[in-house]
């Protein structure tokens, strides 16, 4: 019977993490000559453990991966001593689903295959909420944002803004939970770095596309260590001075380094890459800390990375094109 203790959770995770796919196993799956043989190689690793027999018979790899992700997330939520904090790492899935459901409703299409399982909220709840426009069962922050979006829709506001508003709601919810929990550890560091990097990307895009400050403010997200004013006040700052202006707070040096690289290369992807590297670094450092939720979050992210890698491999196999074996970074 699962218990809500950190030691119990890490003990279970220690065993579960031995079942994660290795780089060598991924390579073997990639080297299989046909999709069917690749599937057989995957199932040989024990990857589909716990997946229903019916689904295995069906043999649809994407459904198996989805089912696995759902099972792992459910298991993690049973194990973790702090569901609210772990849920923060699942919010991007809910954010994606909310955007997808809303867009599908507006376009009159079915969101079906674009939805992802394993978010913090039940998929059925989100489907019902978006179809009935009744958001009272969602957390306060999401409820208010979605009600505002529905009101904007009636007024005929640009639908492209919804995406930024839902992202903003996610970071507002994260900031709220972190504050309520008085969280000072790596989880706060992770989300604050993520928010600062997203805001930096928004600032750089806004400068390139010559947005006005009000439009930039709409896409800035909370939870970062750099004051939002710092971003809105630097729309006109010369590019070579931008890094120095953003170099404030604990994430300042990482942001400044990324901005400097961007200024030298004029390539926005360097900021994204720098963000991913820095976020991974935070998780890597914490992954072996037995006195924090680091191992639990590390396992969750490793499962995500594994699912992404499998999708790349099977996508390439089914599409008949060459792809490199994705690296399992965590």
């Amino acid at each position, binding site marked *: 019977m699962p*218990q809500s203790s950190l030691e*119990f959770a890490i*003990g279970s995770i*220690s*065993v579960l*993490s031995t079942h994660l796919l290795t780089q060598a196993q991924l390579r073997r799956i990639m080297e299989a000559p046909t999709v069917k043989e690749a599937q057989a190689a995957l199932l040989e690793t024990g990857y589909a453990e716990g997946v229903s027999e019916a689904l295995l018979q069906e043999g649809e790899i994407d459904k198996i991966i989805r089912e696995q992700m759902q099972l792992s997330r459910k298991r993690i939520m049973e194990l973790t001593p702090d569901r609210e904090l772990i849920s923060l790492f699942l919010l991007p899935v809910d954010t994606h689903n909310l955007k997808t459901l809303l867009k599908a409703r507006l376009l009159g299409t079915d969101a079906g295959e674009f939805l992802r399982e394993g978010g913090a909220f039940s998929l059925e709840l989100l489907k019902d909420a978006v179809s009935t426009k009744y958001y009272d069962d969602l957390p306060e922050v999401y409820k208010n944002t979605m009600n505002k979006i529905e009101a904007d829709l009636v007024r005929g506001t640009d639908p492209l803004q919804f995406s930024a508003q839902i992202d903003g709601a996610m970071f507002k919810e994260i900031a709220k939970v972190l504050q309520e929990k008085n969280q000072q550890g790596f989880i706060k560091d992770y989300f604050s770095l993520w928010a600062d990097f997203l805001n930096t990307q928004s600032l750089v895009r806004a400068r390139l596309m010559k947005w006005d400050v009000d439009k930039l403010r709409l896409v800035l997200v909370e939870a970062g260590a750099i004051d939002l004013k710092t971003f809105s006040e630097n729309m006109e700052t010369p590019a070579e001075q931008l890094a120095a202006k953003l170099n404030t707070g604990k994430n300042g040096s990482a942001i400044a380094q990324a901005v400097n690289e961007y200024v030298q290369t004029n390539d926005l992807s360097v900021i994204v890459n720098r963000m991913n590297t820095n976020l991974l670094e935070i998780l890597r450092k914490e992954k072996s800390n037995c006195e924090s939720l680091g191992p639990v979050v590390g396992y969750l992210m490793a499962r995500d990375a594994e699912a992404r890698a499998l999708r790349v491999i099977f996508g390439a196999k089914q599409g008949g094109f060459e792809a490199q074996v994705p690296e399992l970074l965590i």
Partner: protein
Amino acid sequence: MITLGTALAFGGAAFSAALAGVGSAKGLAIAGQAGSGVVAEDPDKFGNVLVLQALPGTQGIYGLLIAFIILLKIGAVGGAGVKELTTFQGLALFFAAFPMGIGGLLSAIAQGKVAAAGIYLTAKRPEEFGKGITMTAMVETYAVLALLISFLMVYGINI
């Protein structure tokens, strides 16, 4: 008659047994929860987990040993009757219990944490079980030193 010195000696015995016992209980609980998590996923590891979980239990035994020696010294065990100690003799026995009480409490908790880490190590790499035990046993050194000094002190007091 129970003098203040005799009461202090009893206090020392209680202090040693209680603190070291609490430390061991806490250490065992930490390692036990970690072990339960591992066994929940892989019941075959129970044997290895049990050995690591048991290690922080020794401090409680050492504390009990010092308490027993103090009680033996003041005649509370053995049927000879409790001796009337001077206040200084009692204080000396009380302080003699300190190393084992405090050393046992803290080292058992620390050892429980290392045992938990050893259990995680064993879960991931069963072949490293021996290293997990070695690292956990290193913490024991300081519990043994505490036991030794408490033992020498109790025996050094003339009654």
